[in-house]
């Protein structure tokens, strides 16, 4: 088995009496989509934040590309190749679509302290930016103000900005949220191919997408991973059905 790109080891995190993460160990392997599902309040966001570096675990470790990054901040982890999309779009709203993509390319390049060059005329930044917009289907909207985009287009732009970083892995927090069925289907197809480029840890509520895409699924309930396995394993798992999928068959 190839080495995991991302690995968490027995992460624990409590907020007062609430234990949001309980011995969470999971890994993300090259070429796979690993979906993380769980009911609201299961601790998915807390886990994502520990992986991205926004909050520190009480105990346990996060390893990126075989290196212990538990003590590193979000910026350092992004530089190591963690490409993140947010649950609520985090974009520079006054900027054009292209400027947001160029910002990503600038971050990927890692040399922002140039005070004189015209950033929007720098081919080394524009090419990856345009390329990423093209791939998510936003080329025609490159000149529009980000604040004027539809909700779905903002989600696409989030993915495009992550692409400009040429990351080693993607951490996607509900990329399908609010997309509608057509948009969600298009993004599903896109992510399906993307896993060849870099593996994806996908937090998602859209069960159709999860079962269509995921090589492996982990189910988080009350801060604890109660099952990890293929889509078939998870569907068949009695505990998962009881805790999360409820009475109805979600597939």
């Amino acid at each position, binding site marked *: 088995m190839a080495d995991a790109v991302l690995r968490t080891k027995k992460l624990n995190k409590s907020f007062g009496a609430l234990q949001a993460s309980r011995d969470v160990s999971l890994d993300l392997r090259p070429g796979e989509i690993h979906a993380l599902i769980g009911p609201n309040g299961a601790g998915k966001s807390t886990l994502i934040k520990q992986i991205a570096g926004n909050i520190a675990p009480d105990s346990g470790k996060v390893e990126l590309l075989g290196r212990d990054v538990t003590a590193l901040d979000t910026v350092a982890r*992004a530089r190591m190749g963690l490409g993140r999309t*947010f649950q609520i779009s*985090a974009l520079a709203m006054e900027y*054009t679509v292209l400027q947001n993509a160029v*910002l990503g390319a600038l971050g*990927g390049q890692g040399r922002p302290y140039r005070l004189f060059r015209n950033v929007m005329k720098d081919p080394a930044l524009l090419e990856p930016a345009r390329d990423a917009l093209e791939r998510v289907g936003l080329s025609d909207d490159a000149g529009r103000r980000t604040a004027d985009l539809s909700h779905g287009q903002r989600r696409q732009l989030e993915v495009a900005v992550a692409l400009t970083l040429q990351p080693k892995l993607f951490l996607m927090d509900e990329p399908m949220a609010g997309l509608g069925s057509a948009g969600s289907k298009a993004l599903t197809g896109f992510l399906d191919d993307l896993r060849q480029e870099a593996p994806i840890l996908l937090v998602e509520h859209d069960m159709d997408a999860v079962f269509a895409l995921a090589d492996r699924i982990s189910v988080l309930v009350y801060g604890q991973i109660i099952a990890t396995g293929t889509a078939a394993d998870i569907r068949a798992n009695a505990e998962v059905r009881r805790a999360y999928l409820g009475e109805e068959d979600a597939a």
Partner: protein
Amino acid sequence: MLTREYMLNWAMIAALLFVPLAAWTLDEPFIITLATKAAILALAGVGLNIALGQGGLISLGHAAFFGIGGYAMGILAAHAQNYEPLFGWPFLFEGSNQMPLIWLVAVAASASAALVIGALSLRTSGVYFIMITLAFGQMLYYFAISWSAYGGEDGLSIWVRNEFPGLNTLDPIQFFAIAYVILCLALFFAARLARSPFGLALAAARQNEDRVEAVGLTPFTLRLTAFVISGAITGLAGALFADLNRFVSPTMLSWHTSGEIMIFVILGGVGRLYGPVAGAALYILLEHLLGGISDYWQIFLGLLLLLIVLFARGGLIGALAGREKAHG
């Protein structure tokens, strides 16, 4: 593309040149001095606008940099005119009355102060940032008051304006030319900065910090860099302002001064490149016109500020040139 804002900017910078030129031919030195004051105060605003407009850093302590620039001029020139060495080691230095050297010292001193103040203040944000920058400014203000070696509360006077190679700085129009050229250079620099990779990242950090971190850039160092550049430009303005008046006093460091510099920026339009030029020119104009009617002319200024904040958030430039477009 020739936008309205672009043409308005050129009209303003041209007017700032032609008014004193006309005054010069008509032999009205007072008007030239007013225009010089407007250019220098605009320069201070251009400095603040890099932190405030581009970086979103609401600094109420920029008087610190303005005053440090002023005292850099005052101290160097006072030693030079009194032939008292400023220090004897590692080499004998008797101060200086040469503007280029004074500017260099003013920029270095205010940039260093901005580095220290920024490094401490930028750990906070929002209202705490405003309060900490205000506190640093007031600390320096009271320090200057208690510093009797350099005039304390009374300030420090210079008998003759400092020198610039090849120019007669006592001639109002020549001193204006110096201030005007420096203002134009600063505007050019600020425009390049706004369009640079650094400017893109800085303004993005103002709009969405999470996004900037997620692409692997550090908002803190971006902001600190902007704060240092901002403080340095305002410090240079302080040195020129002190030279204009041939006088520097703790007033330059007081929080009123910070407020005034901020008013130039807000009057003209926050984040508008030429906003401080419009704001400072309007301020000087009002001070001159209304000041003749009443000592309490700032009542009208307050009213105007109120109207602008309520109805024209883009300031004077926003009202005349319309909403800012996203730069493509």
